[in-house]
């Protein structure tokens, strides 16, 4: 066993919350509003369907192959050659996506706070932080997420409340002016984000109660939907149907002015957000590290943490020349590139597994009585 730690279902919920929300609440309102205009708050509900679909596929695979991660059953289903190839693709996807996330984070800090600092500083420091989390193992990550989530969620609930005074709810009318299509278009990019819960495929075996994983992550998807919808609502109500902003949520925070003294709190929000992003990056990082370790058959995954960290940092620099390319990728390509690995390939795997009746026996009884596998 590469990973000895176990996380509780509650910790899984929080990890998944960070995995999606980490960057979603900063970048998505702008992407949804681009197409959906005043209906931006409806778009997350379409993305939610995609998220739930991913949860269904991944947990269904998890049921057929209890105690195995995505990389492990990949090879069981498609054979060693094709399985290893697909595994490499998955690892590339995880690392590439993580590099995009790291770049997003650094671009935001450079644009909004410290334009004179070279971007590499932010790329390297956040990767270093995430590397420490990954080295500490899954349990520590779970506890970190558990510890951070009240602050994180609290902040992102508080901001829409604090701008209540300057909201103009009539900005949301007319609803569905141009039909449902633009709303779906606005939900495509968030859909790719929701699909990031596919990393569950790497974490499922390390749950204390794997059979309850589906409920837990579905709950997380629900919370994320509500959060994004509320954010979209607040952004539209404050800035109108065309916010035309790079980071609407942050500008929203800039506009907070309660009773003449509570203002200019966006720096505080960034502090909380940075912590959240660190967890998000760590989850992706961990998934990539674990996948690499399993694919190469090493006994300790810690030996690949540093090299992958180096690759992550340098990839984050070289993949885009500027922030416009990054935003364009996230808005146009990611809605299709992400789901390819999030559910298209897993769904194909599931179909193949069903057709060829491949299944794996439940793993041997665990000495830990809290862990119940194979009861379903």
């Amino acid at each position: 066993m590469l990973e000895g730690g176990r996380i509780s279902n509650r910790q899984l919920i929080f990890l998944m919350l960070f995995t999606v929300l980490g960057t979603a609440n900063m970048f998505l309102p702008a992407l949804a509003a681009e197409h959906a205009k005043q209906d931006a708050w409806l778009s997350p509900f379409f993305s939610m369907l995609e998220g739930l679909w991913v949860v269904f596929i991944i947990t269904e695979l998890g049921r057929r192959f209890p105690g195995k991660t995505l990389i492990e059953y990949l090879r069981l289903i498609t054979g060693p050659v094709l399985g290893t190839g697909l595994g490499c693709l998955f690892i590339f996807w995880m690392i590439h996506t993580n590099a995009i996330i790291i770049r997003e984070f650094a671009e935001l800090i450079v644009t909004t706070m410290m334009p004179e600092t070279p971007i590499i500083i932010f790329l390297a420091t956040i990767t270093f932080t995430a590397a420490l989390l990954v080295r500490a193992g899954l349990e520590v990550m779970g506890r970190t997420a558990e510890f951070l989530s009240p602050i994180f969620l609290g902040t992102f609930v508080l901001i829409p409340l604090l701008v209540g005074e300057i909201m103009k709810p009539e900005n949301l009318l007319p609803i569905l002016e141009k039909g449902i299509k633009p709303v779906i278009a606005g939900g495509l990019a968030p859909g790719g984000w929701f699909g990031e819960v596919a990393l569950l495929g790497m974490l499922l075996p390390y749950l204390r109660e794997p059979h309850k994983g589906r409920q837990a992550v579905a709950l997380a998807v629900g919370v994320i939907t509500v959060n994004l919808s509320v954010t979209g609502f607040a952004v539209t109500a404050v800035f109108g149907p065309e916010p035309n902003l790079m980071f609407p949520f942050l500008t929203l925070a800039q506009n907070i002015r309660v009773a003449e003294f509570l203002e200019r709190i966006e720096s505080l929000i960034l502090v909380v957000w940075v912590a959240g992003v660190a967890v998000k990056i760590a989850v992706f990082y961990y998934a990539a590290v674990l996948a690499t370790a399993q694919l190469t058959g090493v006994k300790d995954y810690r030996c690949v943490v540093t090299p992958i960290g180096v690759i992550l940092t340098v990839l984050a620099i070289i993949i885009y020349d500027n922030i416009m390319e990054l935003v364009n990728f996230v808005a146009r390509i990611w809605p299709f590139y992400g789901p390819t690995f999030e559910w298209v390939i897993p769904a194909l795997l599931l179909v193949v597994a069903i057709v060829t009746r491949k299944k794996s026996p439940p793993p041997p009884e665990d000495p830990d009585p809290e862990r119940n596998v194979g009861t379903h």
Partner: protein
Amino acid sequence: MVRRLVVINMLITLIIMSAVTGCWSRREIETLAIVSGVGVDLVEVDGKRMYRFTAQVVKPGQLAGGEAAGGRGGGGVQKPYLVSSTLGKTIWEAERNFTTQTSRKMFLSHTEVVVIGEKLAREGIQPVLEFIQRKHDFRETTLLLVAMGPADTTLMAAAGLEKVTARDISDMVVNTRRASVSFPLVTREAISMLQSSGSQAILPRVIHIPYGHKGVPTGLRLNGAAVFKKDKLVGWLTPEETRGWMWVTKRVVSGVVPIPVPGKPGENRISTEISRATASITPSIKNGRLVIKVKINEEGGVGEIPAPGLDPTEPEVVQQMEQFLAEAIRREVLAALRRAQEEYRSDIFGFGDTVHRAYPKVWKKMEKRWNEEFFPNLEVRVEVEASIRRVGMSGKALSPK
């Protein structure tokens, strides 16, 4: 082995320390020029169009000990602020040229007001709003004003009760709500007005009167409004018209409305104070004609009655006062409407937005020609319901005998 590890660890610590201690973008307060007010003008220098960026910078030391040190000494009293203007081909270039005149770096995050010069406003305010929105250190809660005349002299005006002119202006903006002849408008609102096809921008006006003239007091004056079409200034609203606009857009907070004396026509006016006001705009389509109904509800109280012996508690008097009050409010609203519809052809009321919300399909056809064709000929029905709730500390009006 252990010693080697220690050495390596120390090496890493050193590298990290050199890279992480303090940030690149750190700014110490002693090296900053904290800007509290900004003025942007368009000027012609040697036949070239240039932006003039005027910054009012606070001197914290002077601000704290200013009164104790100066004042009585007579002569040589230093102002607690510095006003400096720079030129540039773009606003940002002008802002950056500030470094050619002062020793400190400009810190814009605490800018309270941005004053736009009249000439620039007539050419278009898009560059200013774009600059504020795109630049990371400006905040969208910065108040916007249009100066009648150049913006730099406005910021050079002597501060009144506050120590810095910009502070004076920003506090005045809040204070004038009690007269409702001007209104606070933050950049965010201006941007959303500008971006909407169903409403045109309107910004509060500030006037600097440097010399006394025919009994008009000197200094800064905050009243009236600047009406825009797209992003270009097309004209001004008088204070009364401004309040007319504010009634419709639910911005009236308080103020004094003079009304005629019931039963005694003449010059004398009764003062009524506005204590509450709301409004609703409802568009409707009847027989293919678009009609906008504006309903205003106001509550007020009587403040002074220059008609000896008039009993404001008598039901008929109250009824008549309420009628006069409603009429006075209606007149203000109609004056603003006439200006906007006939003279400026600019939908500052946001009627277009209400049509967009209620009849999205109809709006689609009107959108392109709204300000030129539909809005000027729009039928607007104004209904005012005014009620007088209280009459003050006395009963009948004071009558000298």
